[in-house]
């Protein structure tokens, strides 16, 4: 085997980006570009074939495997989609809200800060009115109806018409509802598992002459798994990830990954 000088003497000084592409149509599925750390562990199993006196005659090597892990400096929804196997969605996304609104003696209705959404007649998921009277604070849960009456409230266009039983009293209303905003969402479904992508780890490396070159590690079949833990809150935001490199049978060369560097001939 001839030694190739271009492959010698590298220090990877920084991992710049990890790009994940669909294996079917090369769509870019996610890009991570604040990589805190990444490692690529290569392993193999071996068994000795022994002869007289237990001397090792030769070694059978098998079970080659490659696993990788690391963490990104920010949480990436697209990476979550790869890890959980979910499809991210964009459009009207629902958010839940709990509001507490005060009302006075003269108020027969209250305004909500957002427009509640849901089945018509059931936009308000829960409503509790706490009224202050001579008996102290009395809380009562009410149902939504088409029109407000003694024991029911109505809702239309951000306005909750209070039950008539509360008229002439002071109090607060706790309202629970959902509202929609233009956004994006990614979930974790129980029936789906991590996707397999064509992944490129782009790095910058320095050789023994202190020259910086672009290095790319191509992982042909990068199988993401759902093992990750978010430490929510606090100063450290990290999105950890794990993957396994599967053998790329399709190309016919059975490769796990390639380490690539280029340099113009002098």
């Amino acid at each position, binding site marked *: 085997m001839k030694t190739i000088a271009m492959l010698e003497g590298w220090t990877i000084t920084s991992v710049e980006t990890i790009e994940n592409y669909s294996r079917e149509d090369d769509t870019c599925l996610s890009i991570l570009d604040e990589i805190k750390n990444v490692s690529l562990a290569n392993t193999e199993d071996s068994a000795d074939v022994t002869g007289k006196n237990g001397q090792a005659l030769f070694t059978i090597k098998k079970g080659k495997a490659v696993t990788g892990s690391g963490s990104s400096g920010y949480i990436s929804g697209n990476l979550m989609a790869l890890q959980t196997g979910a499809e991210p969605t964009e459009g009207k996304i629902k958010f839940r809200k709990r509001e507490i609104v005060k009302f006075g003696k003269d108020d027969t209705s209250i305004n909500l800060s957002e427009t509640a959404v849901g089945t018509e007649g059931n936009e308000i998921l829960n409503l509790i009115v706490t009224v202050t009277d001579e008996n102290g604070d009395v809380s009562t849960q009410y149902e939504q109806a088409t029109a407000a009456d003694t024991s029911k409230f109505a809702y239309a266009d951000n306005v909750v018409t209070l039950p008539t039983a509360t008229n002439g009293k002071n109090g607060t209303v706790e309202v629970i509802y959902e509202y929609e905003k233009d956004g994006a969402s990614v979930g974790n479904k129980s029936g789906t598992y991590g996707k397999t992508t064509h992944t490129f780890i782009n790095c*910058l490396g320095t050789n023994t002459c202190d*020259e910086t*070159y672009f290095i790319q590690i191509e992982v042909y079949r990068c199988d993401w798994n759902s093992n990750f833990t978010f430490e929510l809150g606090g100063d450290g935001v990290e999105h950890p990830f794990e993957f396994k490199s599967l053998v790329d049978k399709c190309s016919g060369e059975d490769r796990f990954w390639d380490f690539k560097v*280029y340099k113009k001939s002098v």
Partner: protein
Amino acid sequence: MVKSKFSLLGKKEYKLTENLTIHIPLVSEIRNCFEDELLYFQLVSIFTSTPCDAMVELDDCNIDYTKVTEYVFFIMKFLGLVNNPDSVSLIHWHMIFPYIDIHDLSVEQKNDMPVVIDNDNNIVIDEKIYLQLADLLRQMLNTSKNMEYYKVPEEETRRYIIDRQRLKRKRQFERNKNQGNSMSSSLDGVILLLVNNSNFKYNFKAVEKLTIYDLYACLQQIYTDREIDGIMSSYWSGNIDLKKLDNSKLNRIIL
């Protein structure tokens, strides 16, 4: 810490050449108020920053940062000062150069190289002197020369590095903008750590009389002592093999 090329301990000035003496400011001079500190460090950075620090700005001017030497980069920035000397705060200028007035300096060509000369036509700064001056200032302020990504032979890799740097700068700018301006001195944390360390002999009042170099040297000495104490504790408790450690890691003398 930058390997000590110059003996600055306990000194308030350093005579680099016949025509150039550098002032080593006291902690109190720098910490007078927030603007003083910021302006002082900004002025020093004209002498200590490298083309790698400004790769994005040079690219915006269509200049390849790998083709610009440190000295040429310095002259480019210094020309801005000498052409507009009234924009330079004299107080901060004298905190670096106590015996030279910026109004007396100009940049001229001598032997095909730009040099900084004074009114008497003496060479104040040429390339050799500049490299010494930059190293001196970096040693004084406990910073290192940024030459990362200076040697990048491939054009595409250079373009990639500059684009990544531009993106990172933009993100940092947004982060700083969201966090608001910090009005605290960068020396506050260092002083607090040192004054509360039993090995440091000075209190809050006395530390103001130290030079900035002495302050950072004390900090580095305390860090080194602490690290070596930790290594020796691990050795005595049988957790590390000293034979596997380089001897330099056990040397308490840092200068």
